């Protein structure tokens, strides 16, 4: 190496030399609190806590003037905190940072507000329903023979709360299972037609449009359709009027709601299967139906399965279509094609609106909340199942 510096070396070394020679003087006083020049002028880390505490105190003072309650205290404190942080940052730092902080706080606030109803619903149902589901025999007994006499005794503290959700649980599970058995094959085949066979012809566009419309129809319409349809079928075969009020009618009503959901979610899943895989299979001399069955469906199966599970979760909580098709009952009915059938949402509705003992509604309320909690747990389990299934069936990509 020569001693003479190249222009590049010169350019690199100069600023370094300059900074080391002049760096000490301005850095000295500013580094008192372990800060560099780059962090100078920033608010100390404890500022948000200080502003928060001040906001809480201020809010408490305002509330003390107009009468204290927790909700008002928290809301006013939150507003005061956002305003306070903005003002402090604006004075001590600059407008850009103040605006940045303001929007960040507002967005966090919006997120918390969105969480409020969710947590509130969960909390209300769990706290109210806990007493219900912990009653002895809540899951094992139905409402047969539970008259107002027992409820009045229970409210007066002279006996246990009798009765339970066995009949409603059986009904919900049977009706939902029947709905799934009807809807999944129809929905799956329809979406396979739409994606693999239709070539986007006019017929498929019409189907897709009506599927979209169907996902939005009010559930009571589905119930009325199924009730009318089954009445027509039954009277055609000469059955007595009223014989069509069975669990199967409810399953048909729910299928009307579920099929479009299954079609839509499955269609989305089939569309994301890369075309390359279909071509690879076709180039091996494999027929289209085999390609669909053995390449496309296995590749999409995890998404399809979780879509189906979420569709089940959607229909499991329907009330109106079941009420108008399967009726309601107090006895456990295991037969989908004979006699009225109870479902959990209908059970909740009836316990709330027509308590077993009108003078002593407390036990009915407890049973209704218990049923609601069971329903929420059911939906939650289905959602967890959907995630587990999606993970379990997803194509394995590890091992590189």
């Amino acid at each position: 190496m020569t001693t003479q510096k190249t222009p590049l070396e010169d350019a690199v070394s100069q600023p370094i030399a300059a900074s080391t020679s002049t760096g000490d003087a301005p850095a000295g006083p500013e580094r008192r609190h372990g800060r560099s020049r780059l962090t100078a002028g920033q608010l100390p880390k404890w500022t948000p806590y200080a502003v928060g505490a001040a906001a809480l105190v201020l809010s408490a003072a305002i509330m003390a003037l107009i009468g204290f309650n927790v909700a008002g205290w928290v809301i006013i404190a939150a507003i005061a905190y956002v305003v306070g942080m903005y003002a402090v940052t604006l004075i001590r730092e600059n407008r850009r940072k103040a605006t940045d902080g303001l929007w960040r706080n507002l967005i966090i606030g919006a997120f918390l507000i969105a969480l409020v109803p969710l947590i509130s619903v969960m909390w209300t149902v769990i706290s109210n329903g806990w007493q219900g589901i912990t009653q002895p025999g809540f899951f094992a007994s139905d409402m047969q023979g539970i008259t107002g006499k027992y409820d009045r005794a229970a409210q007066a503290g002279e006996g246990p709360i009798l009765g339970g959700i066995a009949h409603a649980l059986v009904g919900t599970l049977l009706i939902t299972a029947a709905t799934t058995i009807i809807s999944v094959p129809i929905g799956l085949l329809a979406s396979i037609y739409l994606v693999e066979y239709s070539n986007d012809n006019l017929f498929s566009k019409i189907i897709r449009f009506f599927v979209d419309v169907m996902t939005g129809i009010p559930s009571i319409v589905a119930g009325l359709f199924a009730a009318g349809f089954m009445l027509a079928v039954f009277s055609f075969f000469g059955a007595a009027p009223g014989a069509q009020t069975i669990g199967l009618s409810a399953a048909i009503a729910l299928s009307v709601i579920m099929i479009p959901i299954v079609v839509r979610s499955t269609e989305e899943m089939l569309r994301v299967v890369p075309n390359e895989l279909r071509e690879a299979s076709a180039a091996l001399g494999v027929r289209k139906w085999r390609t669909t069955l053995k390449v496309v469906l296995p590749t999409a199966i995890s998404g399809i399965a979780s879509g189906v599970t979420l569709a089940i979760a959607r229909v499991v909580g329907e009330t109106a279509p079941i009420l108008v098709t399967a009726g309601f009952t107090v006895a456990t009915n295991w037969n989908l094609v004979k006699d009225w059938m109870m479902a959990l949402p209908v059970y909740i509705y009836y316990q709330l609106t027509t308590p077993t003992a009108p003078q002593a509604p407390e036990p009915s309320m407890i049973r209704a909340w218990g049923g609601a909690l069971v329903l929420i747990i059911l939906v939650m389990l289905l959602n967890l199942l959907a995630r587990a299934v999606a993970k379990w069936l997803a194509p394995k990509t590890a091992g590189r």
Partner: protein
Amino acid sequence: MAKRIDANDLNVYYGKFLAVEGVNINIEPRSVTAFIGPSGCGKTTFLRTLNRMHEVLPGAHVKGKVLLDGDDIYGPGVDPVTVRSQVGMVFQRPNPFPTMSIKENVLAGFKLNGKRLSKSDADAIVEKSLRGANLWNEVKDRLDKPGSGLSGGQQQRLCIARTIAVEPSVILMDEPCSALDPISTLAVEDLINELKNEYTVVIVTHNMQQAARVSDKTAFFNIAGTGKPGKLIEYAETSTIFNNPVEQATEDYVSGRFG
């Protein structure tokens, strides 16, 4: 095994749009033929007509004849599935089936068609095909692992193994190395050299050095302009195409003056 391909006055249409016009070409068995030309000139489209894969797109059809050892693959009553089982295809991007292991991928041509194989037959086919694709030594200890876990070059050779497992007469390759690094490209090119001992190989490539390295004969396709049909400009021995082509357009293209 290997069969010859003759195209006579072949026109390829997408709906009403004429994509490739008037192709006459005779491809000898046990040879490597390269298709070169600028993007959009119809070489991939023409390649896909050789095993009727273009029919996957709605509206695609041809006029003219493609003869596979004298039999017209577009003759009345010919099942495209039968054609495709004799004319295999390797695609631009490696596309092993993600739900299948390496072994299942090799056997896909049998398994997907519902053919039952004894375990010894299946193992023999897997080993023969993977050896044929120069992949056996790299994957023999993990045949039950997913095929998508291999590197890109290995995946492409797995796709070639999958294609030769069903013992086609012709293998079509649509830019098989364009998604691969130089080392993997070299492995695939070596493989193409071996494949021509048993198969008729047709390869589309954008890489002219590759065409010069691997092919016996080269076909140059060109297009007059957007919306015009692609045409076969010149078809000759590879050395002729690259050293003293007849057509000015071919010379301009291979010498890099355009395209």
